């Protein structure tokens, strides 16, 4: 009854009632924990009790060689992922974009996006089998066809990172292709027609019109790729366990957080490490925002 009266008199009250779950959820499950994460990072905390630690958790982490190795692994895999994924998805998107028949381009989009709806966990399990480290493995059988020696792939510390990246490229390619395509379709047709009149070849058009027009998309993809690289967890956990084996080559920052949080129950250090990841991600996100603003 009261509600009804309010309905008639004040739509702001009803409006905020409708917004209540959203606001409550954001405050409780996003804003509060990010502040709380910082507070916990200042304690030696075992999940139940905490003792004031000041910045010593951060001090420990920044002097921990394991942390630096995790950072290096994370960073290297991020670079490799972008280095392979960006050009490859751009080429695929350009090719799909040049297809005239909408049915056929839709079919290719659907196929390339297919791995994306499956989980990284499922992908990891299948690729552990494809990359089976003996001559029995399917990838190694393929190498054998070309007269190459079998590789250790995911079980060789030298190749584990690149193998994971190959898998992630397979898994994420379709997503990037769709983003590129959205960008490609926003380029004005007039530009190409003008170039055609001037006698520019298709390849020249691609080099001098398409690629320069893609600058904002490239920036967006680099930033998103970097952010996602810092979140890398599921596949390295399934393939390498909590230690990111073989030889710790797959030990990423999120595994560092996970190990301190849920193996040694040192929540202070885990929170501090996750806060460092948060700050890195935040910097990249803000970079993205400013770039979008400049574009307008």
């Amino acid at each position, binding site marked *: 009854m009261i509600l009804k009266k309010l309905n008639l008199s004040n739509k*702001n009250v*009803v*409006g*905020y009632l*409708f*917004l209540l*779950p*959203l*606001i409550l*959820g*954001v405050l409780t*499950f*996003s804003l509060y*924990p*990010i502040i*709380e*994460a910082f507070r*916990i990072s200042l304690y030696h905390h075992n999940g139940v009790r905490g003792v004031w630690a000041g910045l010593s958790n951060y001090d420990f982490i920044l002097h921990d060689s394991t942390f630096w190795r995790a950072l290096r692994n994370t960073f290297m895999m991020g670079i490799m992922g972008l280095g392979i994924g960006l050009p490859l998805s751009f080429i695929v998107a350009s*090719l*799909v974009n040049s*297809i*005239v028949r909408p049915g056929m381009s839709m079919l290719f*989009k659907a*196929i*390339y*996006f297919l791995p994306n*709806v499956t*989980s990284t*966990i*499922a*992908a*990891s*399990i*299948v690729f552990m*089998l*494809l990359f089976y480290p003996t001559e*029995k493995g*399917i990838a190694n059988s393929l190498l054998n066809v070309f007269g190459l020696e079998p590789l250790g792939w995911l079980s060789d510390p030298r190749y584990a990172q690149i193998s994971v990246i190959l898998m992630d490229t*397979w898994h994420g*390619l379709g997503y990037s292709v*769709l983003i590129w395509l*959205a960008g490609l379709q926003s380029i004005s047709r007039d530009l190409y027609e003008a170039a055609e009149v001037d006698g520019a070849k*298709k390849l020249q058009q691609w080099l001098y019109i398409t690629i320069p027009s893609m600058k904002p*998309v490239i920036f*967006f993809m680099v930033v998103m790729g970097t952010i996602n690289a810092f979140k890398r*967890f*599921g596949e390295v*956990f*399934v393939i390498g366990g909590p230690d990111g084996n073989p030889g710790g080559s797959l030990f990423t920052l*999120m595994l560092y*957080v996970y190990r301190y*949080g*849920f193996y040694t129950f040192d*929540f202070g250090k*885990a929170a501090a490490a*996750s*806060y460092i990841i*948060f700050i890195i*991600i935040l910097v990249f996100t803000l970079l993205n925002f400013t770039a*979008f603003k400049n574009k307008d």
Partner: protein
Amino acid sequence: MSQISTGTQARLQVQSKRRSDLFLRSFIILVLTAGSVLIIVPFVVMLSISLDQDAVFEFPFPFRIIPEHISLDNFKTAIANTNMMRLYLNTFMVAVGVISISTFSALLAGYALSKLKVAGGKIVLLLVLATLMIPGEATLIPLFMLFKKLNMINTYWAFYLPAISYVFGTFLAKQFMDSLPGELREAAIIDGANEFRCFTRIYLALSMPIVATLVILSFLGVWNSFLFPLIMLNDPAKYTIQLGIALLKSRTSSGEAPPGMNMAATVMSIVPVLLVYLFFQKYIIQSVAHTGIKE
């Protein structure tokens, strides 16, 4: 004379251009088809080994796409060893709860922001969108401690409660509602309907395309999520599907599950998302294309 020759020349040019265009197009289709094969191969291998009776204990060698002895034995062992039906049921329970709560919250909020135009709505939207910058990875530790305090570890409340805010969905819902006419609400209010009724009877009914998108996106999110359930659930009876198949590996002594069973379990874990993709790929692909700014 010269006119004719330039005409023929032009025609010849057009012809050769057409021919080279045709060549280029076929080449492009060929390259994309080869790429598609590479994309499909892991699925084919997975399915092949899951159906291969000789893969029960070890890896079939040399690999063949069509197994010599096709059987469903691997699926039977997988169902028995992973408690697959339990995993399905658990994940569906999480999915149904999370999807209904998050979709409803997003639509309610989207309606308030779009059609009720509450005072300060723009600022609220902006602030809420800003929290997208907070990655779930950074809030895991405090959330774990919070749910532990609330005795909600190993319960699905740890999934349902955070679902009450679905920021990205709210953004999509608001945008969709913006495209619906506001006059419908005014007319209904004059006829004596209250706001909630306007929302459910009129705008919700008109919002089915965006409802579908939100439901599909959250389904994929819940079904594929791993880190959050890994933290919140440690009782195998409560595991969701990704935990079930991921930890299958570590449960065996050698750290390697038999390939046939492993692949069968993986096949079963992706069948639901593949079905969703098969029927609703248009929604999924559109939502990605429109929302590159996601996250």
